[in-house]
């Protein structure tokens, strides 16, 4: 081999390494525009995987739960950080504003005693002044902005943060506390704040074998990496209308990341997270097409001891029993269901009909995210509680992410 041929070969390897992975292995690992795709072979590593995954286009940390104050007032809450990947790398610009990601934060507090639903949102680019997704301590990127790095070094358990909405001082934060997650948010304009700490009562579970959650049928389905903490003992404070209330209760945490968008035929999804009184937890989701027919469905049952069984689409059924028309957006949402999972039948009812979140930061972003109660099949006795998310309803709008 001449030195010239050697050089050509080296150059070839180098180029191969720089090319998007799908060009190297048939398009399985990366999207056409170079984002990493979810894989059944994903090598999970905790606690590292609680932190962000920049090579993937989208990622979210989703906490929902039921809380009760000492005086008996009951609340439902939601806290979500979305990471929207704009670029795969931080652009090479000599400015702190050069950003790779966008952070969207949503928080909601439903006062089940008074029947009021409060929603708050933020949208910032991830840059040292506004928002960030710190690297896990062991994976620090040396090139990260000095200030941000210093700030994040001082807070090694921080998963994501952003400034509170304009008009409110403070920061929204999400920490991994070793056993669970701590969250803080505040919005003076919307008049509520959350400061909650959670501890896992059940171990982490993968949603889908190996944490690979397919979102369609077929040999190369759209998918995400997906895991949950289905029972998180929760305590902390809720501020509402100037009152600070000590609360405790139970939460559910979902973490998903991936790069696939909904398939073109899919219009939205119905998603259920239910904590049953007998110690079992159930996650179900249904992806609908534009006619409302089921395009794809999947689920997971976690028994009281943490044992997991995955459900195929034909192993459960969800039937809507009522609808609710939003006075805010005109969208018509299902508002009550009967579920059949194996030999168990359950009735699910919203604890409040109007739990719709209507975003102002991104045009046409609205969805229903609400606290529900679970009753046994006669619809009378308490069988559990949970949260339901309904997207893609109203004027045929598809969720952007």
């Amino acid at each position, binding site marked *: 081999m001449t030195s010239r041929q050697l050089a050509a070969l080296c150059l070839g390897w180098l180029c191969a390494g720089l090319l998007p992975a799908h060009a190297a292995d048939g398009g399985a690992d990366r999207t056409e525009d170079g984002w990493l795709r979810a894989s059944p072979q994903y090598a999970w590593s905790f606690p590292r995987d609680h932190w962000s995954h920049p090579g993937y286009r989208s990622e979210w940390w989703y906490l929902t739960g039921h809380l009760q104050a000492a005086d008996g007032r009951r609340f439902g809450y939601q806290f979500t950080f979305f990471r929207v990947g*704009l670029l795969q790398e931080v652009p090479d610009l000599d400015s*702190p*504003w*050069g950003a790779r990601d966008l952070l969207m934060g949503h928080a909601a507090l439903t006062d089940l005693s008074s029947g009021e639903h409060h929603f708050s949102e933020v949208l910032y680019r991830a840059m040292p002044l506004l928002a960030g997704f710190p690297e896990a301590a062991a994976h620090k990127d040396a090139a990260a902005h000095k200030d941000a790095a210093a700030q994040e070094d001082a807070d090694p358990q921080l998963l994501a943060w952003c400034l509170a909405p*304009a*008009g409110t*001082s*403070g920061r929204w934060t999400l920490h991994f506390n070793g056993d669970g997650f701590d969250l803080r948010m505040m919005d003076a*304009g919307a008049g509520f704040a959350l400061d909650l700490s959670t501890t896992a009562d059940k171990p982490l579970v993968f949603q889908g074998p190996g944490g690979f959650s397919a979102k369609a049928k077929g040999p190369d389905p759209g998918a995400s990496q997906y895991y949950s903490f289905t029972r998180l003992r929760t305590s902390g404070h809720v501020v509402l209308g100037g009152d600070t209330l000590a609360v405790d209760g139970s939460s559910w945490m979902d973490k998903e990341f991936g790069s696939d968008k909904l398939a073109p035929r899919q219009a939205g999804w119905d998603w259920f997270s239910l904590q049953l009184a007998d110690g079992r937890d159930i996650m179900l989701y249904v992806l609908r097409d534009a006619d409302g027919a089921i395009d794809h469905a999947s689920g997971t049952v976690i028994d009281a001891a943490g044992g997991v069984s995955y459900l195929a689409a034909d192993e459960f059924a969800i039937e809507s029993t009522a609808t609710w028309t939003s006075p805010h957006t005109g969208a018509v949402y299902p508002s009550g269901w009967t579920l059949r999972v194996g030999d168990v039948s359950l009735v699910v009812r919203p604890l409040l009909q109007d739990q719709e979140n209507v975003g102002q930061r991104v045009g046409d972003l609205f969805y229903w995210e609400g606290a529900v109660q679970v009753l046994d099949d006669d619809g009378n006795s308490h069988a559990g509680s949970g949260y339901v998310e309904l997207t893609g309803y109203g004027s045929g709008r598809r969720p*952007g992410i």
Partner: protein
Amino acid sequence: MLRFFGRSLAAHVRGGRSLFALTVFGVALGVAAVLAIQIINRSSLAAFEGSMQAVSGEADLTILGRTPSLADSLLPVVLGRPGVAAALPLVRLPAAVASKAHASRANALFLDIIGVDFFTPVRLPWQGAPGDLAAALGQRGWAAFTPTLAQQQGWTVGDSVRVWVGSREVCLVVGALIDFQSLSPLASSKLVVVDIAQAQVLLGRPGFVNQIDVVLAEGADRERVAADLITQLGAGVRVVTPQQRSTQTAGLLAAFRLNLTALSLISLFVGLFLVYAATQASLVRRRAEFGTLRSLGASRGQVLALILGEVSVLGLLGVALGLPLGYWSARANVDVVSIALTNLYLLDEIAAVRVPLSLYAQAAAIGIGGAVLGALIPALDMSRRDPRALLSAFTMHERIDALAPRLAQLGIGILGLSGLWFVAGGQRWQHAGFVLAVALLAGLPLLTPWTIRRLTGPLRVNGFGLGYSLKSLGARLQSSAFAVAALAVAVSMLVGISIMVDSFRDTLEVWIQTTVQADIYVSPAAWRGPGEEGYLDRDLARQLAAWPGVLAVDRLRSFAAYTEQDERLMLVGVDVGLPVASQRFSLLLGDPATAFQRVHEEGFVLVGETLARRKNLWVGDEVRLYTPAGIRAFPIAGVYYDYDARGGGVLMDLRTLSAHWQDDALNGIALYLQPGLDADVVVDQLRAALPVEALDLLSNRRLRTEAINIFDQTFAVTRLLQGISLLIAVCGVALMLLVMAREQVSELALYRALGSTRRQIFGLFVGKGLGMGGLGLVLGGAGGVILALILIFVINRAYFGWTIQLHWPWWSFGEQALTILATSVAASLYPAWKASRTPATELGREDS
């Protein structure tokens, strides 16, 4: 009576078509001048507001630095304050397109690059999903252009556009075409919007912005939020409302706008003279008609109404013609004014002309009102007369003849009183100069009849020569006085402004001669002057200092600073320690040797004359300025001459400036070469060797020429207005000669019967035209000299604080005199031809 009004008007028009046309034209020109200037005045302000509106949307408050830029780390503080619904950081930077077609400064295509955070709720008409913004964020140089500019330049999405920003050449990519003008119709088409990260890279100042716009939450109290922000952000910032910003700009432009308005009103004034004279002439001619009407029973009121009605129709026609003419000339001249504005005030150029209906209404009211006002005195006079007097064959000429001395006394009285008032204390009022100018322009016409009589009275007449023509002007004061007076007003404006502009130009040349001492001047090509962001790379000064043949390097830094009273002024830092520095600024007050030593070694400052006069700051006083560390006092060591339209500056040593403002950027570098080296040759060498084409490298000679070019561009608009006035005045000459040709029909017929040739009569009338031109010149020349003195020593001092050395532009006087005489002759050709056609058979007609 109404029917009679219609018939009489029609007959009047038929009877004197050219007379009628001239009168209408006079009103039209006056209206057009006023309208055009008002439109331009408004557009100049709107241009500034329009561009801000497009990017800032409906910001309720704007946070600005009292120092050149603002740290973006203030943003979280702003966002966290109660009542704030959104905070939008903005970076503004000027750029110039780097291409052969735009290489010369005259053809330069300047862009206004605005950096915004694409993820704050800016009102950009963005059509895509957030993901589509990836290119805007990640692609170096990605920029959104207006479709208008892209179309003009033939750019399409994906094209690269090389631009100069500071001393660097960068490549912008046309990433999207966004119609900012749909958001704000007056936004400049040269607006370019980039993501804030890109803007900071272009500016070379990561972490800094120029302003933060704040949108308030619904129901938030603006004053309270502003006060809270000031408390939170400290003394380094100013929090202003959009209105306050506009007011500041309006204040900045007030002097310029006032000058333009004054000039346009003079045009209208001259136009009114024309209407007055025409009405007077037509009334005299129709004296018998009114006598008949009165004797048939028409009341005085009816006659008055008839006359004023006719004049209103005349005014209306003038307005109908003047409005489109005014709009058209505003459009045609907007570029000229735009250049003046960008030169003088570094404002956005005027991109579009928008006219609210009220402006048209205002101009129409001025036109019709002016015509009626102009005709009121002759009309009242005519309606009051006894019918017998109107019908008798007596002429009115002796009336004004008899009045001439009294009118002159009145004129002298006005001039004297206004002078006394000024000396006795009026001068303390900023607008006093305009009172003097108005008094002069009012007094001058009053002096005209008497002057004509005095000048033409002693003439001896031998035959049909020029002497006879002049004498006849003196004999027909009623007609000639008005034309001469109108011409005199126009000429005095022409002469006065010429003297002022030429003196100014001359002073500026001397000033440039003494202050432009370096051999080569280096500045960023996109830099439009002090107060703009446009930096030179820091190592460029070192690189240039090491260049063969360079003896010394003088560095300049300039930006807007704020006094303790929050007034904006220009802060200039130079290397005062250089041996040549003392020559760069000639001092009005203060001993140069000690002054420059103190500035260099003891942190003293020099203040510009304009600032010194405006703020009454002199040697021994101190200027108190905001620095990042709070307010600091700087003692004044001297006052230097400057010609800054924006309120003057403070000059300090570059070291003092860097120490107090922690700013080491540069806007300009001056090179001193070894004796014997040709600056132009070195400029060429530097151009070839330096990788930076983004620099303006000007040799001493070129810089002087450039400066004078800019000056000439700036005053182009005043020359235009002078032209309009002169045109109106010349119309007056033609009009009066037509009137005379008509009035003197029987006299001319007599001459013809006595054997005069047509040629002689033609010559007589041309002589009259020449005579009017000459008399207008004499009176206007005298008035013009006084007006020049008022402009130079009172108005310019009061508004700009400039010291202008008086300079007599004899050559241009000569040129102007010849032009006026030639134009008067040209204006008299048609009336002379008409007069020469008078047949001897008209002898029987009664001379009216």
